[in-house]
């Protein structure tokens, strides 16, 4: 769309255009080419050739079908009864339990959440780098037979959410933060492995080629030519995922995988609403802190 002077001139009837009645403007004007595109009628609302129309129609269909097939209990939710129970529910949150003993417990839960996210991210960065190498074509002449299967593995790791991994890993790792850490590591390995392999493939091939022509082995080519180039990018991806993982670790415990989430589901299950409120406040504080830090550091870095 242009917002230049052209758009302004459009309001004058252009030469050679059809007049308001759909007839040519004048016989002598017919021979000169139109200076501007002639006026056209607005397009019809639906046109089989317009992809946007099909898109809108599909979206409308999806929305209507979703509303129609889902047994939503609006009546129950919007009733006076529900409002009253919601009010009672919220009122039970007050006063939050601020006894020193419980605050210490919540503090440890917060530290556990942070530790889970940090360790999970570190493990994932190491595993992601280890998988990124077979998942990428390091130089043009390489056959890279391991590339498709490794990418498939990375996609599989990535497409299962952390919470599902945690629920699966509870069986072999038992209740507690270790299952959560491993779950974060699994999902993040998939994400980071893919990002890392893209970074490695996009690195400029010059230094690696120079070493390879000297007969240096593939591991050392990677360590001394490719890795130094992509290391800043890998670090920034890892930090970004750590930020995401703190948020994920806070809720991961809901299935029993440690951290603040476990405290939350434990006290909510026992209907100890004062304690639940404290845990919720700690969770929100943690998320807000991470958001604020990431926002300000991003601004500081891009300034």
């Amino acid at each position, binding site marked *: 769309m242009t917002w230049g002077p052209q758009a302004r001139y459009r309001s004058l009837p252009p030469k050679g255009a059809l007049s308001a009645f759909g007839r040519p403007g004048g016989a002598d004007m017919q021979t000169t080419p139109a200076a501007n595109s002639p006026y056209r009628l607005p397009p019809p609302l639906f046109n089989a050739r317009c992809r946007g129309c099909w898109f809108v129609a599909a979206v409308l269909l999806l929305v209507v079908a979703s509303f129609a*097939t*889902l047994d939503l209990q*609006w009546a129950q939710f919007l009733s006076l009864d529900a409002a009253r129970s919601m009010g009672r529910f919220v009122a039970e949150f007050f006063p939050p339990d601020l006894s020193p003993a419980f605050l210490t417990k919540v503090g440890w839960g917060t530290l*556990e959440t942070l530790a889970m996210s940090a*360790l999970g991210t570190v493990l994932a960065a190491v595993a992601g780098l280890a998988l990124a190498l077979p998942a990428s074509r390091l130089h043009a002449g390489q056959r890279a037979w391991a590339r498709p299967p490794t990418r498939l593995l990375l996609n599989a790791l990535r*497409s299962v959410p952390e919470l599902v991994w945690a629920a699966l890993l509870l069986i072999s790792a038992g209740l507690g*933060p*270790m299952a959560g850490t491993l779950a974060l590591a699994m999902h993040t390995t998939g994400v980071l492995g893919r990002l890392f392999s893209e970074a490695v493939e996009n690195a400029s091939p010059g230094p690696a080629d120079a070493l390879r022509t000297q007969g240096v082995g593939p591991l050392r080519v990677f360590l001394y030519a490719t890795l130094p180039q992509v290391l800043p990018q890998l670090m920034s991806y890892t930090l970004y995922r750590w930020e995401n993982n703190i948020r994920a670790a806070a809720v991961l415990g809901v299935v029993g995988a440690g951290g603040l989430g476990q405290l939350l589901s434990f006290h909510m299950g026992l209907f100890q609403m004062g304690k639940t409120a404290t845990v919720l406040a700690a969770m*929100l504080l943690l998320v807000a802190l991470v958001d604020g830090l990431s926002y300000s550091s991003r601004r500081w870095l891009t300034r």
Partner: protein
Amino acid sequence: MSSHTLARQAALRDPAWAGRVFWSSAALVLLWPLAVATEFRPWVLFEPANVKVSAQFIKTFFPPAGGTEFLAMVAREAWRTVAIATVGMTLALVLAVPLTLLSTSALSVSALSGRMARGPFWLRQGLRWLLIVLRSVPELVWALVFVRVVGLGPTAGVLAIALTYGGMLGKVYGEILESGEAHPTHALLRNGSGRLQALFYGLLPQNAAELTSYTVYRWECAIRSSVVLGFVGAGGLGQQLDTSMKMFNGGEVATMLLVFMALVALADRVSAGLRKALG
């Protein structure tokens, strides 16, 4: 030792050796307390009793459960997952669009001549804080709360997605509208058009593609999170997955995980295609 071999050894020495060793050992020292805090004992995974249980569970993954009845149930639940995400996104839009219009400074009339007036400024700031609060509560927590109020079922999941994604969409829509070219909107507002006219003729034409593409991307994310919400009882594929896991029925878990991966991959494809078409 001849000078020849010495020279070769020198060439093979890593010049950055000391730094590497220092940083690796520093990382290990830093990681130790983390491992203690998270009770990270990987050898627990390989204790005979645990290995036996895990092996048995994994063995039941093959073959994945089939059967017409089960597959029909999985298909129904997969559709419900998509439906929860779609309804949640629709309600999120209902929440986000008015809040965006009220909170974006791109449509401020008083800001045309320098600073925004105090009243509108605090109104916008307050609404922005509301959006930030809505989006910073994880959807899983909203779902836990709503499961208590409206009971088990898709309503809790829909409401959780609506609130969290309403906050996200509102905040990002506002940022998109403010980051675009401000001249057409300002020209319209200065010449006496209403805010809605300025929106439709000044802001939307240049930002529509970006807004739509962000919405489609969030819809894809909503599908992923609606599976997760099922784990706290908000219906859909996640709830069935949770049930099967608790009954150690590996075959059903395998089928549902495969269906879920296919669903996510499909949503990913559709969303990427749409966003590419939008340019």
